[in-house]
């Protein structure tokens, strides 16, 4: 199930909220667990079994780690952690990477792995990471072992952030799973965030997506230089509003149910360097890789060659996490190289430049990265990048560019403005009274227009099927 759909908004959500709040406090996790499973099984009922397996196996491993530690058996505890990591990575590997590896090997003449045609279980990259961090944290004594399987199952399957993040660590949610508070103020704050997220996804991202799709599908002989940039700009904004919109909806839904999730995006496009961009983009993923991969590899307290290797590993993993395809690996390594360059050479020099040049520098590199991200086929990618850098077969611009530019200019301007903290800053300056009057009006407008666009849902993709 996805949030940006009529059946979610006008059937699933009101029913969940109604039953959830009619249920006494101590049964709410059970109710939530049941609804989580419906949410997950909606798109592919068979894969509910993965959920059951994940709950049972990670629950058992958490208990094993805790029991070994009680007995002072560190080796046993380590073994249990290793076993949990192997299970989760195995799950991810099998469902997400098996076919990719099989096909890649077959392409170089090593076709010993059969291509199984596996349909990727939605959200698997998110929840395997979440459950993996649980056992690790129990071992590190950063998290308590959860002995109630319903509570634990609620964590594993929690529908607001199940399929598209943010990636939440058990230790951050532990208290809330058992004693969360519910208040109208919190619910209303959730509504606010949710509607903003919905509008970002339905009104901005979906529209920008149509512009990008036009350029992505365009035969290379028709591509123009400015057209190629327009296309990649549209994709950059689409992905941001789609992904951050989804995260906002998750945070908002969480609050409606009494949970507090940390925000996942912090205006990434105002960054002045690639390093800063990654502190502002998909924050929960960056923090996960830092905590569970980069630091265990030795962090930055290692020799310089080792540090370079560690960074390369982390960014190759980050890249391939985004999808089982070579372009994602390339995309991750592209950032890995840029971050290394910034760390050792560029950052100090960049800081001396005027701010506007720093912004241009960062945006330029990020835009190029999105071309690598969005175009999977290397041949096509090469032609697209060539078009961006002057080698367009269709020349500098053409009539179609004029058409698209004209048609999408208002959407692009609104989207660019909405990717800046400008709106939030202006909102903050408003007095309490006008705010209270304006807020319901804006929220209603967001809901009404989003509904209209969903009723006429000709274009409403879910971008994270690859994640």
């Amino acid at each position, binding site marked *: 199930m996805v949030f940006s*759909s*009529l*059946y979610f*908004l*006008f*059937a699933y*959500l*009101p*029913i969940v*909220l109604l039953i959830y709040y009619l249920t006494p406090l101590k049964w709410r996790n059970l109710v939530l667990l049941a609804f989580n499973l419906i949410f997950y099984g*909606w*798109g*592919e*009922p*068979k894969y509910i079994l993965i959920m059951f397996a994940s709950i049972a196996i990670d629950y058992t491993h958490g208990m094993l780690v805790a029991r070994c530690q009680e007995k002072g058996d560190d080796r046993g505890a380590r073994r249990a952690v290793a076993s949990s990591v192997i299970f989760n990575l195995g799950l991810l590997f099998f469902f997400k990477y098996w076919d990719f590896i099989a096909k890649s090997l077959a392409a170089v003449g090593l076709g010993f792995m059969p291509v199984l045609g596996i349909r990727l279980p939605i959200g698997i990259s998110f929840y395997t990471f979440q459950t993996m961090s649980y056992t690790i944290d129990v071992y590190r004594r950063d998290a308590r072992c959860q002995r109630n399987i319903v509570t634990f199952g609620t964590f594993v399957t929690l529908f607001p952030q199940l399929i598209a993040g943010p990636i939440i660590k058990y230790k951050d949610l532990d208290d809330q799973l058992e004693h969360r508070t519910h*208040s*109208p*103020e*919190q*619910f*209303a*704050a959730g*509504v*606010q965030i949710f*509607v903003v997220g919905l509008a970002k996804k339905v009104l901005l991202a979906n529209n920008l997506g149509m512009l990008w799709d*036009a350029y992505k599908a365009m035969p290379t002989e028709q591509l123009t230089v400015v057209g190629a940039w327009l296309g990649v700009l549209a994709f950059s904004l689409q992905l941001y509003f789609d992904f951050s919109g989804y995260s906002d909806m998750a945070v908002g839904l969480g609050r409606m149910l009494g949970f507090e999730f940390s925000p996942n995006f912090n205006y990434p496009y105002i960054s002045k360097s690639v390093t800063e961009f990654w502190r502002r983009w998909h924050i929960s993923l960056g923090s996960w890789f830092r905590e569970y991969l980069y630091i265990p590899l030795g962090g930055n307290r290692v020799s310089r060659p080792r540090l370079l290797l560690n960074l390369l590993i982390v960014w190759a993993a980050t890249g391939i996490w985004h999808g089982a395809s070579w372009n994602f690996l390339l995309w991750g390594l592209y950032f890995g190289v840029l971050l290394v360059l910034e760390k050792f050479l560029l950052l100090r020099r960049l800081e001396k430049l005027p701010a506007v040049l720093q912004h241009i520098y960062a945006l330029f590199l990020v835009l190029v990265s999105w071309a690598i991200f969005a175009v999977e086929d290397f041949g096509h990618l090469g032609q697209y990048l060539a078009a961006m850098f002057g080698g367009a077969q269709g020349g500098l611009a*053409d*009539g*179609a*560019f*004029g*058409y698209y530019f*004209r*048609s*999408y*200019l*208002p*959407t692009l301007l609104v989207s660019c403005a909405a990717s800046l903290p400008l709106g939030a800053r202006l909102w903050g300056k408003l007095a309490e009274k006008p705010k*209270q009057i304006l*807020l*319901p009006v804006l*929220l*209603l407008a967001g*809901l*009404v*227009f989003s*509904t*209209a*666009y*969903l*009723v*006429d*849902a*000709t274009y409403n993709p879910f971008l994270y099927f690859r994640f």
Partner: protein
Amino acid sequence: MDKRYGIFLSGAFCAFLGVFLVAGAVTPDKTFSPLENRNLQQLPAPSVKTVLSGQFMSDFETYVTDQFPGRDSWMDLKARTERAVGKEENDGVYFCTKDTLISRFDPPDAATVSKNLGYVDQFAAKAGVPVYFSLIPGAAEIWSDRLPAGAPNASQKAILDQAAASIQNARMYSTYDALEAHKGEDIYYRTDHHWTSLGAYYGYTALMDALDMEPVPLTDYQKTTRSTEFYGTIYSSSGVRWVAPDTIDTYVPDTGITVTSYTYDSKGVPVEEARKLYDTSFLTVKDKYSMFLGGNQPLAVVRTSHTDAPKLLIVRDSYTDSLVPFLTAHFSEIHLVDPRYYKLSVADYIRKNGIDEALVLYSVPNFTSDKNLVWLTK
């Protein structure tokens, strides 16, 4: 935020969701949307099988969208919003000058086009009678000057040229030239994908030319306006509700003409059904173009009073419905075959029914996407 305001905001949000949930649940479901000319999804009943396969879920999603309270008004709001934010198309339909809606013509699948051309040629080779062939360009081609500046629009002329170059056995003639010469007239509907009776008349003159026959001058006919309230298929698919309706005219009187439709009932028994050249009962419903011959049918025979005139067979799409009236002056029988529904051998049919000449006539958008022309080779 204080508590009372929080309750107000939360309540308002839940009320918004709840109103449509309840309204959707209590309003009776519609079975058919005349506006969109399609059946609407009904509430699916879950079963173990449909839930496990996911069929129930996808039907339920369609159900919620199809039966959403105020569906048409929401579509209207969306289309108006799109226009307000500077868009010049909605759901694949361009907002054109002269109050016209035109569907975008995307580059067709090259393999389908060359396959379909091949089927026509094979049919011409085995039909046993002269086979004429023409493609009718759509409004996106002839009225391309009405499109928004620079709007992406694939060339239909290129398809015509490709057909002219590859067809060996059929006698190709150009409908394009006749329409292009009259592009300033109302030859297409502004809200529908078909040509008007006037457009069909020019198509008819091109065919008469190819057949070496003399077309009846348009001035010999009296124009009859059948409807001034016609909103066609593009109006439906565009969501655009701000254009003026079209007018449906006819020229040829239907006296002395009988139309018989041949089909099969649900048990496979052949059924004959009397139809009319102009079935005016359709003028009271949304789908007014079906006034011509009563809409889609696998096989129809139009019989005229010119019993000594030749017999013509047309393999066709719905553009031919409004062309047929003009042909009644020249043929004793006109047999209409639609391969979307007629799956028997057309060559056999020609032999058994003493057909003198055959015509394959399609609009470019239909011809380039049709998957049924393969039946012609039977």
